[in-house]
C-alpha cells in the first residue's frame, strides 16, 4: 500500500503543488483584503511615482448587527384574495411595491423578500446602514391601500330569537330607569338637575361628564322631536311621563323661552398650524395666532371676504370665507358660540377650535323663539344595535394593483387641484363594468380604509381614466400622486416584528468581533506550536490558508456576516485544528508501533480519516438543523460554522498533507522535535 502511495509524490510534483498553493494564497489574499493592497499601492505611488493599480472587489457583506440598520417583518393579510393561485401573485405584488418604496428611500443594498410559514405570508425587509429608521418605516408603512367600492345590497338580517329577547330586556331596563328617575323628581321631590346628573347617559364630548343642559332649541334644531316637545310645553314644566323618542327615552325640563338668533349667516378666516389634522400650513401654533391677530387689525366688514380668499386656510376661502346660513348644533361648540353671540355686523376676536384659529364675521341673523331645555336621556335600543354594522360598500376587484399612473390635474371650472388616475388594461375593463353597473349611483374610492371621494357615475367610462376631486391643496395632491405612483398596495400589511441596531453599537460589535478573531487564531496557533512542534507549525500555516479560503468563500457567495456568524467562523477555526490533531495523534501512534517516519505520516493521514469523517458529519447535521430552524441570526451562525467544518476537513487532508510530504525528506527520525511525540523505539 505504501509503495503505491509514494509514486505520485515525487519531489517535482510536490514542488509544483506547493507553488500553486502559494499562488492561490496570494490571489485569495488580494481578493479578501483589497483595501490593504490599495493602500500600499497609493503609498507607493506617493513615494515612488508609480502605482501598481487599484483593486475593486466588493467588500464583505455585513449583517445588520454589525452595520446598524433595521430588520422588519411585515405580515400580509391575504384574506381578501379569492383564490389560492392569486395569493402568491398578490404577495409578490406587495413585495414589489415595498421594494419600490424602499429603493425610493435610497438605502444601499436593501433586502426585500417574501417568506412563507404555514399559511402566513410575510415580507422581510432589511435596511442596512439606515440612519433614520423611523422615517424609513413610516414611508414603507405609508404605502397607501387604494380600493374602489360600489354600493352593496344592505343585507338586513332578521334578529335571532335570542337577540330579540335581549333587545326587549334592554329596553325594559331602560324604561325602568327613566321611570325611576321621574319618580325621584316627583315623589321624592329631589331637584331636577341633581337627578339628571345621576341618571342621564348623555355626555359632553370633551370630558365625558354627564351633560344635562341640551342648549337652545329652535325650529332649526336637527332633533325635531325635541323641538316639538319644546314648543308644546310651557316654561318651568317637566315631562309628566317619560318621553319615548326614536332613539332615546327622556324627561325634559323647560327652562324658558327667549327671542334670539336661530340662524346665522357668517364668513370666517381660518389659520391652522402644524399638527392640526388636514392642515396644509407649516406655521407653528404661536405663529398662527400672531398672524390672525395681525389680520384682526386690518379686517373690516367690507374687506373681510377679500382677505379671507387670500389668507384663509379653509375650503371656504374660495368663496371669501362664506359659510352660508347655519343653525345651532351644526358647528363645533367654540365656533357656534362665537358666531351666535356676536352682534350682527360684528367681527370676532381670534378664538381657537380644533381646526385652528378663527375670525368670524357675522353678516346676518334670523331671530326666532328659542327654548332652553335640559333633560335626562336614556338610550333606547333598536335592532341596528344588535346587527353588525352593515358595510354599505362592497369591494370590487379594482384596486391599487391596476393603477398605471396618477397625475395632478386642474379642474377646468374651479381651477382646483385634482388627482387623475389611469388604469391598466384589466383595470380599464373592470372600471368599465363598474361604471356600467352603477350608472347614476355613487361609487366610493377608499384610501387606507377611508373614503376619499364618492363621485356619482354619470356615464360608462371605457378609457380607464378617473379623477379624484376634493378639497386638495396642491401639496396634498402632489403627495397623493407620489404615494399612488410609488405603488398602491394590493393587500394590507402589518408590522409584526422589527429589530433595529444603532450604527454605533454595530461598529463596536464589528471591531470587537475582529479583535476576538485575531486573538483566537493566535491562541490556537501558539498552542499547536507548543504541543506539536514542527508539525504544529505546518498545521498553523495550513490554518492560515484555511482562513483565507473560507473568507473568500464568504465573500464569493456572499454570506452575510453577523456577530453570531463571525463567532461561528472563529469556532470553526478551533475545529479546523481538530482534524489536524486527529492526524498527528495517529502519526504518533504509528511511531509508537515502530514504523518509520514517513510511513507513519502516510498511515496517520489514512487511518485518521474515518474518525474525521464521523465527527464532522455529526457537526454538519447540527449545522443543517440550525440553518432550518433559524432566524437570520441563527442562520449566519450555522452557515459559517458549516462552511468552516467542510473547509477544515479539506484543509487538513490536502494542505497539511502537502506540507507534511514536502517536508518529510528534510527530516530525520527525531520525532520529539518534529511532532512532539515519542522517538523511535530503537532509541
Amino acid at each position, binding site marked *: 500500500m505504501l509503495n503505491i502511495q509514494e509514486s505520485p509524490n515525487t519531489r517535482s510534483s510536490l514542488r509544483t503543488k506547493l507553488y500553486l498553493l502559494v499562488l492561490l494564497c496570494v490571489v485569495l489574499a488580494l481578493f479578501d483584503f483589497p483595501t490593504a493592497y490599495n493602500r500600499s499601492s497609493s503609498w507607493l505611488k506617493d513615494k515612488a511615482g508609480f502605482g501598481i493599480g487599484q483593486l475593486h472587489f466588493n467588500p464583505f457583506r455585513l449583517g445588520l*448587527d454589525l452595520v446598524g440598520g433595521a430588520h422588519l*417583518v411585515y*405580515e400580509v393579510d391575504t384574506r381578501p384574495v379569492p383564490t389560492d393561485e392569486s395569493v402568491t401573485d398578490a404577495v409578490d405584488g406587495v413585495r414589489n411595491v415595498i421594494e419600490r418604496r424602499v429603493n425610493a428611500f435610497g438605502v444601499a443594498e436593501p433586502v426585500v423578500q417574501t417568506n412563507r*410559514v404555514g399559511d402566513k405570508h410575510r415580507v422581510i425587509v432589511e435596511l442596512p446602514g439606515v440612519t433614520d429608521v*423611523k422615517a424609513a*418605516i*413610516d414611508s414603507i408603512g405609508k404605502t397607501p391601500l387604494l380600493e374602489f367600492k360600489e354600493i352593496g345590497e344592505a343585507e338586513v338580517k332578521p334578529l335571532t330569537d335570542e337577540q330579540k329577547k335581549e333587545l326587549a330586556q334592554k329596553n325594559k331596563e331602560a324604561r325602568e330607569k327613566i321611570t325611576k328617575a321621574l319618580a325621584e323628581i316627583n315623589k321624592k321631590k329631589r331637584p331636577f338637575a341633581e337627578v339628571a346628573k345621576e341618571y342621564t347617559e348623555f355626555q359632553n364630548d370633551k370630558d365625558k361628564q354627564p351633560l344635562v343642559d341640551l342648549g337652545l332649541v329652535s325650529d332649526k334644531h336637527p332633533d325635531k322631536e325635541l323641538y316639538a316637545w319644546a314648543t308644546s310645553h310651557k316654561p318651568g314644566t317637566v315631562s309628566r311621563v317619560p318621553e319615548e323618542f326614536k332613539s332615546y327615552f327622556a324627561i325634559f325640563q323647560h327652562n324658558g323661552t327667549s327671542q334670539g338668533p336661530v340662524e346665522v349667516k357668517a364668513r370666517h378666516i381660518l389659520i391652522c398650524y402644524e399638527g392640526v389634522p388636514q392642515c396644509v400650513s407649516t406655521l407653528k401654533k404661536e405663529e398662527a395666532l400672531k398672524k390672525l391677530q395681525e389680520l384682526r387689525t386690518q379686517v373690516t366688514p367690507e374687506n373681510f371676504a377679500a382677505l379671507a380668499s387670500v389668507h384663509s386656510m379653509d375650503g371656504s376661502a374660495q368663496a371669501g370665507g362664506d359659510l352660508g346660513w347655519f343653525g345651532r348644533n351644526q358647528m363645533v361648540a367654540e365656533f357656534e358660540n362665537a358666531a351666535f353671540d356676536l352682534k350682527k355686523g360684528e367681527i370676532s376676536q381670534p378664538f381657537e377650535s380644533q381646526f385652528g384659529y378663527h375670525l368670524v364675521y357675522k353678516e346676518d341673523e334670523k331671530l326666532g323663539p328659542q327654548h332652553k331645555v335640559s333633560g335626562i336621556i336614556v338610550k333606547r335600543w333598536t335592532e341596528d344595535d344588535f346587527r353588525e354594522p352593515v358595510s354599505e360598500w362592497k369591494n370590487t376587484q379594482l384596486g391599487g394593483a391596476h393603477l398605471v399612473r396618477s397625475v395632478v390635474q386642474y379642474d377646468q371650472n374651479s381651477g382646483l387641484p385634482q388627482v387623475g388616475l389611469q388604469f391598466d388594461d384589466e383595470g380599464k375593463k373592470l372600471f368599465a363594468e363598474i361604471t356600467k353597473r352603477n350608472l347614476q349611483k355613487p361609487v366610493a374610492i377608499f384610501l387606507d380604509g377611508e373614503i376619499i371621494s364618492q363621485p356619482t357615475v354619470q356615464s360608462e367610462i371605457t378609457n380607464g381614466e378617473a379623477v379624484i376631486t376634493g378639497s386638495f391643496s396642491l401639496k396634498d395632491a402632489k403627495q397623493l400622486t407620489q404615494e399612488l405612483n410609488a405603488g398602491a398596495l394590493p393587500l394590507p400589511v402589518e*408590522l*409584526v*416584528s*422589527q*429589530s*433595529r*441596531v*444603532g450604527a454605533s453599537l454595530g461598529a463596536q460589535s464589528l471591531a*470587537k*468581533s475582529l*479583535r*476576538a478573531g485575531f*486573538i*483566537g487564531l493566535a*491562541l*490556537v496557533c501558539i*498552542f*499547536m506550536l507548543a504541543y506539536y512542534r514542527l508539525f504544529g507549525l505546518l498545521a498553523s500555516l495550513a490554518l492560515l490558508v484555511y482562513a483565507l479560503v473560507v473568507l473568500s468563500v464568504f465573500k464569493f457567495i456572499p454570506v452575510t456576516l453577523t*456577530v*453570531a456568524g*463571525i*463567532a461561528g467562523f*472563529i*469556532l470553526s*477555526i*478551533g*475545529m479546523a*485544528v*481538530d482534524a489536524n*490533531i*486527529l492526524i498527528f*495523534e495517529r502519526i*504518533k*501512534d504509528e511511531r509508537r508501533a515502530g514504523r518509520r517516519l514517513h510511513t507513519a505520516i502516510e498511515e496517520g493521514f489514512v487511518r485518521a480519516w*474515518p*474518525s474525521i469523517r*464521523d*465527527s*464532522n*458529519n*455529526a*457537526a454538519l*447535521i*447540527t449545522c443543517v*438543523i*440550525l440553518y432550518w*430552524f*433559524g*432566524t437570520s*441570526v*441563527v442562520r449566519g*451562525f450555522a452557515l459559517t*460554522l458549516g462552511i468552516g467544518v467542510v473547509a477544515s476537513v479539506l484543509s487538513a487532508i490536502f494542505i497539511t498533507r502537502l506540507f507534511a510530504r514536502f517536508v518529510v525528506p528534510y527530516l530525520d527520525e527525531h520525532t520529539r522535535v518534529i511532532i512532539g511525540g515519542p522517538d523511535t523505539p530503537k532509541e
Partner: protein
Amino acid sequence: MRFSFVATRKYWYTFSGIYIALAIIAMFVWGFKPGIDFTGGALLEVKYEGTRPNPTQVHELLTPMQLGQIVVQPVDEANMLLRLPFISQQQHDEVFKKLDELNGEAGISEIRYETIGPSISKELRKNAITGIIVVMLLTILYIAFVFRKVGKPVSSWIFGLTLVGKALLHDVALPAGIMAVFGYYMGYEIDTLFVVALLTILGFSVNDTIATFDRIRETLTRAPKATFAETVDDSIYQTLARSINTSVTIILAMLAVYLFGGETIKNFMLMLIIGMVASAYSSVFIAAPLLVDFARLAAVRKK
C-alpha cells in the same frame, strides 16, 4: 499500576451525579425566564446624553400611556433598557419622544429596538422544541448507523443512546442549569441564542465522544483485549491526547470571543464554553465507562 478510568468510574458517576442533580433541581425550581423571542414584546435600549433619570421617573412617565407591564433597567453608565409588551410603531415613537423630553436639552439616542409580535414568538417556541428533538433523534440514528457492525458486547443502539444520553443529561444540562441560576439571581433571559447554544453543544458533544468510541470499535474488531473493560480503558488512553487537545483548541477560540468579542453574544459563548468543557470531561470519565456497565447489564440479561 496506571490509573484506570473504568475501575474508578463509581467516583466519577457520584461526582457528576451531584452537580447534575443540582443543575436539574435549579432548572425545575427556578425555571427559565423567557425573553421577548418567546413571549413576544418589545425591547428598547436608549442612551442618555445628559443625566440619566432613574427607573421610577420613567415608570411614572409611561404609566398614563397604558401600555401594560413595563420593566425599566439601567444598563452600563448611560443606557436605559425598557421591556414592554408588543407595541405599534406609533406607540414606539410616542415613548421615544417622552423619554427624550425627560432629558431636556441633552437628548437621547436609540441604541437598539426590537419587537416580536405574538405570531412570530409562537413560531420560535415551536421551532426551538422541534429542533432539539430532531437533533437528538438524528444523532442517535447516525451513530447507530456508523457503529452498526459492532454487535457485541454492546449493540450499536447502546452506543448511540449512551452518547445522546450523556450529551443531554450532562453536557447540556450543566450550562442550562447554570443559566437557570443566572436567571434567578441576575434576571438573565433565554432567547433564540440560548436554544442555538443547546443545539450546538448537543451536536458537538458527539464530536468529542466519537473519537473514543471509534477507537473502541476499532480495537474490538482488530485486537480485542481480555475484557471489554480493558478494551475501553485502553481506548480512552489512546485517544486521551486527542480528546483533550481538540477541546483545548475549541475552548481557546471560544474564550477569545467571550473575552474580546461583542457584548451581545457573551452569554451564548459562556454556555458553549461550559458545554464543551463538560463534554470533554464526560466523554472520558462518563460515556466510555458507561458502555462497560451496559455491557454487564446485557450479559446478565442473556443469562
